[in-house]
């Protein structure tokens, strides 16, 4: 069965390693924070200027001076720090953030990503996404395998305006975990519980390498 949003977030949470600093984008990526394993410690960065972001505040404890990059009210954990935007992107560009998780509209088999603009629709802007994908060494995309029309979002080449080139390392969708390999394209490494390799193949347009054995994810 295809994963729901929380399932995707749970699977991504398994990628987290002890001591990592992590930037989570808006949407599914934000949910990853809910599934950090108990035996590791990671610190969440939000590019508007906080390290050590905690959960949403309890009702009544909201502080207008404490938000994340999605403009949601948040809390800060012991050991957190606040800093300005230039410092925030200094740490992003200088690769101090070990993992960046973000959503996408399209990903190519070369690791290109498009997630900021749909021609003809109101453009909201790239926010910090272009800075993040241009510098992060470890980018996981969290998204649905297909769009609302059922078309594959894993393409040979992005059709939408690019956010960054050759940057995505791994993709976790409702159907599969795929790694991006410079020659093989998408490498299918895991399938969602009960989802067949055939379904994934049929819903992937980009170059796809299917190993002999594709295990089911354990979440």
């Amino acid at each position: 069965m295809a994963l729901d949003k929380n399932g995707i977030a749970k699977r991504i949470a398994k990628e987290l390693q002890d001591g990592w600093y992590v930037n989570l984008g808006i949407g599914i990526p934000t949910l990853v924070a809910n599934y950090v394993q108990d035996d590791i410690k990671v610190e969440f960065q939000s590019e508007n200027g906080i390290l050590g972001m905690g959960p949403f505040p309890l009702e009544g404890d909201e502080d207008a001076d404490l938000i994340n990059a999605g403009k949601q009210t948040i809390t800060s954990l012991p050991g957190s720090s606040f800093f300005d935007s230039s410092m925030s992107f200094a740490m992003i560009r200088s690769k101090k953030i070990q993992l960046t998780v973000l959503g996408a509209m399209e990903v190519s088999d070369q690791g290109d990503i498009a997630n900021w603009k749909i021609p003809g629709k109101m453009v909201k802007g790239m926010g910090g996404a272009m800075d993040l994908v241009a510098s992060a060494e470890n980018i996981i995309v969290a998204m649905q395998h297909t769009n609302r029309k059922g078309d594959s979002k894993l393409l040979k080449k992005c059709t939408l305006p690019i956010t960054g080139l050759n940057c995505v390392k791994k993709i976790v969708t409702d159907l599969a975990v795929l790694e991006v390999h410079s020659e093989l394209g998408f490498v299918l490494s895991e399938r969602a519980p009960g989802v067949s390799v055939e379904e994934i193949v049929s819903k992937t347009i980009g170059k796809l390498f299917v190993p002999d054995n594709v295990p089911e994810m354990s979440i």
Partner: protein
Amino acid sequence: MISKVIHDLDEALNGLEDNMTVMFGGFGLCGIPENSIAAIRKKGTKNLTCISNNAGVDGFGLGLLLENHQIKKMISSYVGENDEFERQMLSGELEVELIPQGTLAERCRAAGSGIPAFFTPAGHGTEVAKGKEVRIFNGKPHILEHAFDASFAFVKAWKGDETGNLIFKGTARNFNPSMAMAGKITVAEVEELLPVGSLEPNAIHIPGVFIHRIFKGSAFEKRIEQRTVSKRN
């Protein structure tokens, strides 16, 4: 002796003219210079080019200047949380230049640091790179970006002293420090305006040398854009 402390908002805006380029601190509605924005609305200055990460919402933040048709162009990283913005943009009334957030911040910091241009990897291979010089460093393409040039910067701090030293709070810091450094004239509004010597010199985020005018804001609504809470058990 000269004082930076402003008692009358007209004074704070002295020299602000139509067609100028102006920076506004803040991220979303967090840490925006509410009182200065209200004063600019009242003054009615037109055709402003505004550098600000976002463009406010309907009826608040830069939305107040948008609905009064005072903004000619927005230079931002993320916009459109705002119906009036969308209407003006689609009708061609409002020009919009979208810039990656880190580049936006660094172009402010560069302006305030006497660095006219720098290379960044952000935006390479995208439409942001169009017409820009590309150069390889460490095997990776980077694009040349330039410092902004803004006549005014309006920023908001938590505490300030009468020489203009500023301390920000939480994530309300965001673009305020870099923009404070960048303005030819920087106007700071603060929640608490303290006598000289009240702030711990080690704890100051922006030294007063960057601040030309400072005042205690009379009202801070601090509207929350996305109130998100955890349930109490």
